[in-house]
């Protein structure tokens, strides 16, 4: 059965952002990265942003394979450096909507310093950070977000290291839009990403996403259990705020966590300075 592409795009508008010749993706059954990618494409569609107005940049990891499937300007770089590459790209072409797809290892372990500096500069990049609590691509080593006690190939008796709270770290470092969604709450995620793209400044959208095959297997959770875990253990920021302190343990707030429109955006500051110093010639 051959359904014409126009018909598909009518029903599934995000299809226009896909490199269909690259399908199927490398992602495992049930993996949440596909949901996050779909949510990103839906966000672009809702904002009316065309393929050739977007630059999608990534490092290395399962989550970083996303640009390979995106039919726009894409740049697949080295492990941990996506934000550094994207910073250069954004400075040279500020008019491009710049999205970085990254993983918890990519952005917080090997590439941790670029993460805090992108936030500090408040550069207009939208970082979709797939937090699956593990190095998925290399087969399941402990990452800086692996929850305490969880199993990874390098922590066969449970993780004993404390983990990062990504959102708090981004806020502390100066990010001006910080949100958290999950692969289960797909529509909400799409809205959070869209608002992140609209926001002028550094936006972080942390996506809690199940690594079904590696994390799930190591921690004896089925695909369903992982998705239901997100459903049962996250709640909207509003509900979270109403929750008394003692009931918050083990629960994760979802939604917009921080929004600051008072700080100037980096490329603007930069080009304004260039203008001022060149007497308006550049």
């Amino acid at each position, binding site marked *: 059965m051959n359904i014409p592409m126009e018909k598909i795009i009518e029903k599934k508008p995000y299809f226009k952002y896909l490199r269909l010749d690259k399908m199927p993706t490398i992602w495992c059954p049930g993996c949440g990265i596909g949901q996050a990618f779909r949510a990103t494409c839906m966000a672009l569609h809702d904002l009316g942003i065309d393929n050739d107005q977007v630059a999608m940049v990534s490092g*290395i990891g399962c989550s970083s394979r996303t640009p390979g499937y995106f039919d726009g300007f894409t740049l*697949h*770089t*080295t*492990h*941990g450096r996506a934000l550094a590459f994207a910073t250069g790209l954004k400075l040279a072409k500020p008019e491009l909507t710049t999205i970085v797809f990254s993983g918890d290892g990519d952005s917080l*372990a*090997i590439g*941790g310093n670029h993460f805090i500096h992108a936030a500090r500069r408040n550069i207009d990049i939208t970082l979709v950070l797939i937090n699956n609590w593990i*190095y998925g691509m*290399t*087969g399941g*080593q*402990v990452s*800086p977000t692996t929850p305490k006690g969880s199993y990874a*190939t*390098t*922590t*066969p*008796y449970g993780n004993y290291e404390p983990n990062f709270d990504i959102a708090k770290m981004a806020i502390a470092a100066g990010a001006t839009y910080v949100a958290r969604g999950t692969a289960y709450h797909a529509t909400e995620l799409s809205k959070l990403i869209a608002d992140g793209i609209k926001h002028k400044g550094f936006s972080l959208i942390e996506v809690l996403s199940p690594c079904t095959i590696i994390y799930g297997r190591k921690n004896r959770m089925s695909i369903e259990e992982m998705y239901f875990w997100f459903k049962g253990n996250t709640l909207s920021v509003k509900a979270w705020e109403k929750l008394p302190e003692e009931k918050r343990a083990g629960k994760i707030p979802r939604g917009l966590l921080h929004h600051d429109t008072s700080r100037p955006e980096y490329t603007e500051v930069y080009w304004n300075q260039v203008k001022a110093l060149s007497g308006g010639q550049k």
Partner: protein
Amino acid sequence: MRPELIKEVTYVPYSGNMAAAEAMRQINPDVVAAYPITPQTELMQFFADFVANGLVDSEYIPVESEHSAMSACVGAAAAGSRAMTATAGPGLAYMWEVLGIASGMRLPIVMTVVNRALSAPINIHGDQSDMMGARDQGWIMLFSENAEEQYDNLIQAIRIAEDERTRLPVMVGMDGFVISHAIERVRLLPDRAVEEFVGELKPMYPLLDVDNPVTHGAVAMTDSYMEFKRQQREAMTNAYKVIKEVGEAFEEAFGRKYEHIETYKTEDADYILVITGSAAGTAKYVVDKLREEKSIKAGLIKIRTFRPFPYNDVMDAIEASNCKAIGIFDRAETFGGASGPLFEEVATTQYLRRKYYPMTGFIYGLGGRDTNVNHIEEAIDKLMRLAAGEEIPLVNYLNLKE
């Protein structure tokens, strides 16, 4: 193999990664710091299991990058402990800054490099661009042809690195996937024998010797930096002897022969192939095949020690043969150079003896591209034409789609 050891040796079906992890278990280093990267990941996971199951006394640090892995090893080694790690391709590239610190501080760190291609484009498969890129960082460099050699080389590397005449870090390369992931027969030595062979580390100027405080890696400006570098050359020159001696000691203890180079049927060879790594195995097969089927006399020089480069050994082997042409196989590029990096070394050997043999270079296996019997036969055919006086370019690609 020494006959009395045969009973004590365990024959196992191991991949290169398993063999390297097993060597590390038997060496039982004080500190291991590593970051996962294909195709090395598995090696470190095997080792992490040994740690978790209490089979080694090592402190194991799953650090957050290769830069940190080598930094942690430098710290550990400077403190006076035996430190090991492993990496591959881009991981080695990311370590680059610290590689020179390890050798400049004369720390006997031993590392497996599972040879992998470098980006861009992104590729996870085997080639030797990673180690060739790190060539001038002052490390001793050995290459293995198979899993057992990786095992043996790692064990020897500890003694080579820690010898007071060298005190240099050693990296031991094995081709990604072809060696690291393929299962072969490996003859494991008894734990005690390895323990005895590697012996105890004798720390030199350790930071933990609080009665004799020292500083490592301090600033050395125009008045003294060059002298440090001069000493590194001295250590590398010594390493040539030390590697040889340790190889002899290994042969004496276990009956497995290790020299700077291995020659295969070069004595009467008209055409000499020079290769490092796993492709040497295929080349040996081709040498036999051509001798049998077509009476073509080719021979092989396999380079085990790449740094310090064994110029004399290579030239001795060439001069003792019937050599009419030499083909150098490079699994790495040096863009803008005459041919590959190994080619340049072999060219230098001739200069050092004031000799001239027709030579040509073959670039093969980049990013894991297959190199099979046909491709090596094709190369030998070119060598024969070169020997017959035909013009052959200095750079020839094997199995290239063009």
